[in-house]
């Protein structure tokens, strides 16, 4: 069962590694992600050699569709689970997962959905499994309350309105990158030091971000959240075929965005997305679209993001062993911050 398109035949756009938003490159990234997924699924099928209880026609038709059309983010997590199931020698489970995968509808446009209850819904459990911060800080994830979800949708709408007016390039790139915004809820603990999740994205949920619908930092906060999470997705797409850093994950360093030390790849991501957050706030502030009520907040956010970026880039430059790809991407963020 071979691929009809070779990933090596895809021509990357010239501005693939640009720091500035470029919606046009996302089509390349998305197709490369899907082709790599199709290649791996084809390999799995060949290795299984008829031991997976699934119609070959149905599987082949799906691979053809996968190579040609965008798919929902869950396609990547279903593939990931399939590999684990096969490695556990649970071929019935693997076949069931592939059945689910091949039954996914094509994706089109950006949709906002409410997380279902992970206790009863397998897809919701998949999304929730990615909201996991590590270092022993695990978060419970719940369906959002209707009022919180409605408020969050309003913030997202307001955020896109602001970006459409003041930063249309980023708005277009985010719409190209994201297929799903999943609204969920974290714990509402009365203890102000209790930890809750803020947002999440993962390469095995390519095209999805998960937001805590209980967030209360308003439209400008939502603009930054969308810039932040979409930037993670952008990096996931850019590093689909090669790593960004060579530091082993056991090496831990101070993080600009987290109280506990993190691996270099986490510092790298945090540093890049912080620059993207700075960029969108600056662009909106300079474009004159921010109401007076948000201008003071914008100034504070710019200062905070610059401070966090400087903390992060210092660690990256001092300790990071970057690949050529990693260097190419972070250099753009550094150049932007130097000029801003």
């Amino acid at each position: 069962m071979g691929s009809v398109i070779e990933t090596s035949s895809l021509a990357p756009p010239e501005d693939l590694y640009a720091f500035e938003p470029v919606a046009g490159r996302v089509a390349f990234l998305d197709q490369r992600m899907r082709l790599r997924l199709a290649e791996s699924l084809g390999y799995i099928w060949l290795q299984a050699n008829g031991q997976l209880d699934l119609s070959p026609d149905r599987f082949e038709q799906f691979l053809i569709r996968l190579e040609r059309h965008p798919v929902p983010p869950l396609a990547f997590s279903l593939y990931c689970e399939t590999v684990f199931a096969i490695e556990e020698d649970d071929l019935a489970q693997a076949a069931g997962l592939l059945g689910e995968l091949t039954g996914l509808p094509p994706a089109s446009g950006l949709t906002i959905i409410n997380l279902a209850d992970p206790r009863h819904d397998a897809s919701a459990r998949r999304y929730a499994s990615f909201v996991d911060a590590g270092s022993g800080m695990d978060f419970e994830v719940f369906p959002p309350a209707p009022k919180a979800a409605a408020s969050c949708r309003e913030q997202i709408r307001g955020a896109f309105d602001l970006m459409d007016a003041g930063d249309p390039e980023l708005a277009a790139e985010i719409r190209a990158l994201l297929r799903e915004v999943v609204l969920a809820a974290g714990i509402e603990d009365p203890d102000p030091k209790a930890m809750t999740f803020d947002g999440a994205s993962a390469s095995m949920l390519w095209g999805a971000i998960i937001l805590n619908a209980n967030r209360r930092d308003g439209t400008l906060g939502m603009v930054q959240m969308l810039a932040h999470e979409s930037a993670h997705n952008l990096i996931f797409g850019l590093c689909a075929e090669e790593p960004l850093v060579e530091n082993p994950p056991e090496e831990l360093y101070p993080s600009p965005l987290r109280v506990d030390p993190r691996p270099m790849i986490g510092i790298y991501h945090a540093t890049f997305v912080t620059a993207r957050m700075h960029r969108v706030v600056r662009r909106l502030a300079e474009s004159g679209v921010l109401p007076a009520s948000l201008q003071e907040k914008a100034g504070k956010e710019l200062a905070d993001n610059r401070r966090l970026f400087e903390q992060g880039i210092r660690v990256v430059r001092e300790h990071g062993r970057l690949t050529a790809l990693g260097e190419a991407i972070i250099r753009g963020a550094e150049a932007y911050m130097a000029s801003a």
Partner: protein
Amino acid sequence: MKATTKRVKLDRSKLFGFSQVKPGHTDPGAEARRAGVGMKTVGSKAVGIKAIGIKTIGIKATGIRSAVPR
């Protein structure tokens, strides 16, 4: 009872997302693919903490498996 010999053998180096996984780690993309988990204190405005968290987790056939956090 599961067979001691796997019926389907997969070479991770040929699998998208798994090829960069270091020996001993189970999760594709490991830390990298979880770079996008942000968290904060419920009262983060007062405390002033922003955070990005990443963790290796995988999903077993029976449900969700959390690997040892680093």
